[in-house]
């Protein structure tokens, strides 16, 4: 497995080989790291919008919904401590990674 530590103010998106993950912040301040590909047809979830009425992330391609409970439960293992995050990715430790700052459209609060 691949362990990545970074400053979430500087980066919010990880490319690890062919996989991508984005950081999502909830109203209580907690962060989750979620796979960027929608399970339906691979849509870029970081470009989805947050439905505040239904409390869910909506995929921009076909509208698949991811409830907050699901996002929390199925997100990657992540530790947020003293301004830095450590993510544990399901990838070989030698996988090349790129940290990026992206415009995450899903704003929960």
């Amino acid at each position, binding site marked *: *497995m*691949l*362990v990545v530590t970074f400053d979430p103010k500087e980066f919010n998106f990880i490319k690890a080989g062919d996989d991508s993950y984005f950081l999502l912040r909830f109203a209580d*301040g*907690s*962060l*989750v*790291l979620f796979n960027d590909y929608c399970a339906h047809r691979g849509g870029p979830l970081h470009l989805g919008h947050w439905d505040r009425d239904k409390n869910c992330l909506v995929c921009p391609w076909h509208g698949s919904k991811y409830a907050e409970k699901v996002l*929390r*439960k*199925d*997100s*990657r*293992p*992540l*530790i*947020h*401590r*003293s301004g830095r995050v*450590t993510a*544990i990715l*399901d990838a070989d*430790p030698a996988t090349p990674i790129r940290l990026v700052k992206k415009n995450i459209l899903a704003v929960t609060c």
Partner: protein
Amino acid sequence: MNDTQTAFATALAPEASTAILGSLWQSTDIKPLIELYAARPLFDNTSEWIIRDNPYRRPVDLKTVQQLDFSSSLSRSEILGTSALAAHRMLLNIYETDLIFLPASDFPAKRAEFSSYYSNDNKLLGELIRPTLEAHVFSFLNDEINVTGKWTVEALKSYMQSILEQHEKSELDICKRIVASANPQRAARALLIQVAGDFLSEASASSRNILGKYGEIQSELFKIVIDDYGYGVHPAKHSTLFENTLATCGLMSDVHAYWHFYLSSSLAINNYYHYVSRDHSKYFRAVGAIAMAEAMFSHSCREISRMLRTVFGKPVDTYYFDEHYHIDAHHGRMAFDYVVAPAIARHGNEIISDIVRGMEELQLLTAISDEDLIAQIEFADSVDELKTRAQEVVTDGCDSASHLESSGHSLVTKVNDQDKLYQIESGSLDVVISDNQTVRLASGQSMIVPRQRLHGTAVVSDECHYRTYNLSM
């Protein structure tokens, strides 16, 4: 029924008891109980800076406690301040009534204090105030650390391995700072004093986790504990090995002899083990903390052993640290392979976030403790500069207080929440920085004590008139 009986009867109904207890913990009525606890004679100031062979005398500084508010949680920037020090001192006193301490000599003369320390009054009062004090000093951990996501044992193992790989490649900052100190032996002794509060009763807090009945992992955890206890062979007990180290560095091994010189952050680590081990709902956090501590301690001990030999030369007995360097390599592996992983297999992945939390909390508290001790060493090394700077300070507009004190021996160390200027107008005042560093200020002299730096003061002339100024931060 009278009011008390009514209250008790109501409390027997579960919903009512939760409401009553909930409001009790949050109530400002706890403050009088905290003051009552701090006012117990055992916790009064002492007549000497070193407390010899009396494990029951543990000053908490009543005068300061009376001025403090413990009702809200401290932030990260406040956890080395005045109320943190007071709270941690009281918490250690509370927790350690579960441990047995006996003086090395003259028990009859100390019997009254022994009985008082372990009395129901002392324990009950301590239990009433404990949750408030814990919330005050440990809540910041919830703000600083967040664990999310779908953890598996493989993810946990990878995370732990990455932490250990980094740790094992590093030189400890605290060791580097000690060797570079203006007085390396003084600085090294300061480190030993900080860990003495825990190491002299080593594994007592975490031994709370081996009680009860909960399967094979209990027996595996017990193996780690019996290593620490030397398999019942007293000379092999780790605390005995540590006593030998202390002796060769010119330090006493009486329990809490150096109570006055425990930094708040050192008390915090000691208290943290009690906090997560006494409340068994935090068991998995305790497991995480213990597993991480065991794994990291091996390399740390190698570094400390090397540092002690550099600083003290051949006479120093480093066997405590050398033994830990060896055994904790095993303990780290045992803790993960035979306690953590089987616990997850048995109780489910849901416990992993608690385990990770424990690991992170311990690392954070250790990092804070290292920074605190480095700052204290820098304070000790900077006395001349602090006296020089004191002469140049402009005190206009600063809050000040005038003090007229006689010599006497009501001693307790403290920290200030702001930089403080001590200015002697007449007489002499000692500013005590450690067990073997005292700065004597005579009439006309002054010194700055930086914020959050532990120190004590003692009037050494018949009378001393001095002013203190809170300097802007």
